[in-house]
């Protein structure tokens, strides 16, 4: 008995040293969506650069990918595959909300250091707050949706109320958990913070074919503008808004408008739409380091997405940080050590001498002053001018009717003006 244990012990040690010549990174996400591909390619570029510089801890990095097909159950199987068949050291994820929620129990079981670059669900950060021990390997380097919505309220006060003079809004929210969460935050804060009265909240089914009756209802409320919250089938709402030429301004959250392909996918029927976006977004002025990443990216890939989505940047910078943390902690095996080193990572990207982007994480007990809560393992963000502690949690992106896009809020990052579609009378 003793002998076999010893034997298998040496076997494992032998195998470990044989396989230890490389660091294995696993990618989990959809291989056929712009979202998934952004993360995958961001990771690929980062790994290429690291390997060209001699790798990490003297070892080369390899990448294996597991497709989720955006299906939560497939996500669980993909995670198991990476963990048990490929035995990866680190996982980078471009998963959407429910897929991440699906494989999280597996991450807690295997305790593989994992970085999420796309899902912004605050519920996952809440899990870190409630159970820091089992969530130790998890990091999210996109600002959580709560932070996105909070800063968006300021846009309401500064631009919608102050500049446009709008006093009332009708909220058009999809019937999803995302829609509900954002709607709740916006509804609570719009009136007290921005002084905009919420006339009505219309919740619609994501499979809605015809939005004409819904837009009629919105117009009947007599509100000054529509606030849309849409993450699933977002293009249907915005394209019908454009096709119907609804004579009412509309802004809000439209997840489909976050990538450069939005114009091509809508055949141009997407002008006049503005949306909240995580950063960096389309129309976002890039710092030299991020611009260099985009240049390498565009030289390397000629298929969509032509410009990586925000999560591509997160994956590129985040993967390098995870490797640096591993170097500091002596590898990925000691999860607590790696997590501590990861929390200390701090990458400040400057533009014209001022802070532009920052890849760092909130301290475990650090309270964010505006929302008054903690965001452990979430990327550090800033919710108030002049954004000198970190980058804002979001920007507002405006698509113009000529197919260009620009950032219109906050002021510091603006490259264009907030406008209304030509058919909407002021």
């Amino acid at each position, binding site marked *: 008995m003793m002998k076999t244990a010893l034997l298998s012990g040496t076997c494992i040690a032998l195998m470990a040293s044989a396989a230890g010549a490389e660091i294995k990174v696993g990618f989990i996400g959809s291989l*056929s969506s712009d979202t998934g591909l952004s993360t995958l390619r961001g990771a690929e570029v980062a790994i290429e650069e690291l390997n060209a510089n001699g790798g990490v801890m003297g070892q080369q990095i390899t990448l294996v990918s597991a497709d989720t097909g955006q299906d939560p159950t497939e996500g669980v199987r993909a995670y198991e595959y990476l963990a048990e068949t490929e035995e990866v050291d680190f996982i980078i994820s471009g998963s959407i909300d429910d897929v991440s929620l699906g494989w999280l129990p597996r991450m807690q079981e295997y305790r593989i250091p994992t970085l999420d670059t796309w899902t912004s669900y605050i519920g996952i950060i809440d899990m870190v707050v409630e159970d820091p021990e089992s969530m130790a390997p998890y990091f999210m380097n996109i600002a959580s949706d709560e932070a996105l919505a909070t800063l968006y309220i300021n846009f309401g006060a500064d631009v919608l109320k102050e500049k446009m003079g709008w006093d009332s809004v009708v909220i058009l929210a999809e019937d999803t958990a995302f829609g509900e969460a954002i709607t709740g935050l916006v509804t609570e804060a719009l009136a007290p913070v921005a002084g905009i009265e919420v006339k009505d909240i219309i*919740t619609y*089914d994501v499979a809605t074919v015809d939005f*004409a009756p819904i837009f009629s209802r919105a117009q009947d409320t007599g509100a000054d503008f529509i606030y849309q919250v849409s993450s699933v089938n977002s293009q*249907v709402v915005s*394209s019908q808004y454009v096709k119907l030429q609804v004579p009412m301004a509309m802004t809000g959250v439209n997840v489909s408008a976050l990538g450069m392909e939005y114009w091509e*996918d*809508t*055949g141009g029927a997407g002008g006049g739409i503005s949306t909240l976006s995580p950063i960096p977004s389309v129309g976002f002025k890039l710092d030299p380091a991020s611009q260099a990443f985009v240049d390498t990216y565009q030289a390397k890939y000629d298929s969509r997405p032509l410009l990586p989505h925000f999560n591509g940047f997160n994956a590129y910078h985040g993967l390098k940080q995870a490797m640096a943390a591993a170097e500091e902690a002596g590898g990925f095996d000691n999860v607590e050590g790696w997590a501590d080193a990861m929390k200390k990572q701090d990458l400040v990207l400057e533009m014209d001498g001022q802070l532009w982007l920052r890849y760092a994480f909130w301290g475990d007990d650090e309270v964010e002053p505006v929302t008054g809560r903690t965001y452990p393992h979430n990327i550090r963000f800033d919710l108030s001018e002049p954004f000198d502690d970190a980058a804002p949690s979001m920007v507002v992106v405006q698509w113009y009717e000529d197919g260009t896009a620009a950032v219109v809020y906050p002021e510091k990052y603006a490259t264009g003006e907030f406008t209304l579609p030509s058919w909407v009378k002021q």
Partner: protein
Amino acid sequence: MLQILIQGLLLSGLYALIAMGFTLIFSIGRVLNLAYGAYLMVGGYMYFWVSQTLGMPKLLGVAVAAVLGVLMGFLKYRLIVKTLKGDHVAVEISTLILAVVIQAGIVLVFGDSSKILLPIVPGVINVAGASVTYNILIATLISWAILLGLFAFVRLTHTGRAMQAVSMDAKGAAISGIDPDRINLITWGISGALGAIGGVFFASYTQLSPSMWVAPLIISVAVVIVGGIGSILGTLVVAHIIGFLEVIVVATLAPELRGVFTMLLIIGVLVTRPQGLFGREEL
């Protein structure tokens, strides 16, 4: 009120167009073509590729979509229905598998992200306070024209009457010299074309996405169940019941319960009146 009437009429016209091809197959071949939604999807994507990616004329796009639809109908009949010798359950299951395969194929060729069709006819008018796009108006008019044309075809032409005969009694029709095989093939072709054209309009309402085949399938299923084995007029009537129910729920009740009411209608009708509202009618 007038708004609901207009919006209801427009949506119902679209639903009638979508469901027609599905009921046609059900009434002639007595089988459910669960890959029917895939006709719509392939038709929509084909139109997108021809007219928006290649920049060819829109009419050509519709034509190519329709031809492809006919082809798919023929192939499905020859390769699946004939091979399985009309075993209903086997046909239903294989068409379901086929739909899933086609969905994977679309992801392979066009990717996961959804696409929007430009309006087939751009522009918008205001009728009694309701915005109506020309696109939707045209879709409804074409839908009516196609349905009337189909009605005339079935009633007035020799082939159409043969279709009626097969629908009522396949064996009897065979005895009186009709080749049921040929009639079935024609019906599958027509159904494919109707599906593909319906798909172009459905996609111009909503969007192109690899999972877009499910929603029209459910609409078609609802029409077949509520209506009973479909006659053309029955399909038209039931499409209006479902379309108006939806518009009324969205406009006056709760938009998020849009689909729930349709499902309740289906289950309610099936439990209380399994033969459907119109029972078994001739075509």
